[in-house]
């Protein structure tokens, strides 16, 4: 049976590598629509990583909210602002070498921290799975206040977005 777990581990590493490749695609592709699609691939990839971490509720929510709604929002915005099929002009400004250097340093430092610290991985925590039932209880139990705040913020953002994006009648264009 352990071959299957090795296979699963191998699969997860492949998914992680793919996600990183698509993430690079998001950042470097000249055509914005292609980078948006790479973002969709990254999101689905992270959903599979969540599945590997036994967090299937969050994976489903990620696909539902991110890939279903946020991606559509982004693609609508791209369609409304980009001229269909015009020559894609230079997408990156001149800061890229400096940015790369800084980031390499950042990665190196944080990487060292990750590899050095002894993470308190307790056997008991590994065993306990989180069922949707316990998530619901926690969400309605100890986290009911942030839950309500989030819904208030969602409504505010909804109305704000509509007011900002709406074309006010007296404007000429």
């Amino acid at each position: 049976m352990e071959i299957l777990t090795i296979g699963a581990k191998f699969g997860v590493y492949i998914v992680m590598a793919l996600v990183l490749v698509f993430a690079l695609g998001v950042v470097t592709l000249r055509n914005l629509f292609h980078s948006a699609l790479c973002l969709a691939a990254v999101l689905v990839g992270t959903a599979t990583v969540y599945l590997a971490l036994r967090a299937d509720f969050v994976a489903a929510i990620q696909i539902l909210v991110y890939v279903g709604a946020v991606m559509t929002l982004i693609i609508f915005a791209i369609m409304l602002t980009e001229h269909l099929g015009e020559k894609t002009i230079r997408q990156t400004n001149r800061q890229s070498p400096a940015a790369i250097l800084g980031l390499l340093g950042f990665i190196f430092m944080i990487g060292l921290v990750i590899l050095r610290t002894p993470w308190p991985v307790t056997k008991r925590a590994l065993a306990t799975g989180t069922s949707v039932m316990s998530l619901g209880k926690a969400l309605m139990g100890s986290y009911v206040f942030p839950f309500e705040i989030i819904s208030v913020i969602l409504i505010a953002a909804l109305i704000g977005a509509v007011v900002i994006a709406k074309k006010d009648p007296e404007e000429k264009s």
Partner: protein
Amino acid sequence: MTMPGWLRSIEFAVDLSFVNAKGWFLDLLGKFLPGWIVVLTSIVISGVVILCMGPIIMMYLTLLERKLIGRIQNRYGPNRVGIWGLLQPIADGIKMFTKEDIVPANADKLIHLLAPIVIVIPALMVFLVVPFGERMTAANLNIGILYFIAVSSITTIPIFMGSWASRNKYSLLGGMRTAAQMISYEIPMTLSVVPVIMMSQSLSTNTIVMTQCGDVDLHWFVFTPWGLTGFMIFFLCAVAECNRPPFDLPEAESELVAGFHTEYSGMKFALFYMAEYMNAFTLCGIATTLFLGGWQGPFLPSWLWFFGKTFLLICVMIWFRGTFPRFRVDQLMGFAWKFLLPLTLINILVAGLWQFVPERTAWLYSVPILIVSLWTLVKLNRHFVPEKRAYPLAD
């Protein structure tokens, strides 16, 4: 009414014939090959069954649709290829294979190719969760329904890809409209599932079907007031979700040629076509699972009950196609946001109260609430006539 013992055992045997066959085959395999191969083959078997069953169901759905639409319009459906036209789907398949695959000149080649592939994957992935019979669900996920809603919400992305990549005004318009329609009908569909989840205390499709069990006195959710309204809303959203008439404005032949798959021909168009019909089948399957008691039924084997109910729902979808004219864009959107959404919220409220009140009084208060809310919503959605449009440049 308890069935005689021997009849029950026969019914049980027939019912689980497929499951037993698979079990027997796996045991046979288990004798020779190591354990993990057996696990792998069981996954592969259910995968292969789904991958074969999906397209075959899609092919014969197209035939069923053309036959029923023909009969509604007082003419025969296809009856030339094979007896009663049974080989017609194969003929269509060959036609789709051999048709030339035209790619527009300045289309975005890669995305143009990718769109039909990405639209078929969610259509096939949803089969994982549909419970075809007793113990015949491909994967018994404990987030079954949420998985179904999440995967069926992915289909907006390939629609964008298809319409944007073909660099065609009409397909772009059609793509935008389809995406807007699918999002606005996804919300009532998701909310109409909530009462069922509340009642069956779990997201997994199997437990949902088990809570509706009852040998002869059927406890299907559709026989409760909130279940009936939930079923109506879910079914209407299902019809809208797979772009079937009367909600098929985005790919209406008269206005947008064929909506987002205008520039597709040959095999790519066949994939779009297949995805649409598989969506129709899975949505009807999930509607039966949620509201019509899935594979629950008095005598016949369980999978027969499931396929019977699903094909009944598909015939109703085809019946809709034969009857209703197309919605206008604003009616289409208004119906989802101003009519279905409030109705689902009220439905959730009624289903919530359903648990705390004994059965008899529950009926007394829920039916009037639903009827009054339906009536007020209808009154609120008066017939909306768009005001006369001003054309400043015309005069």
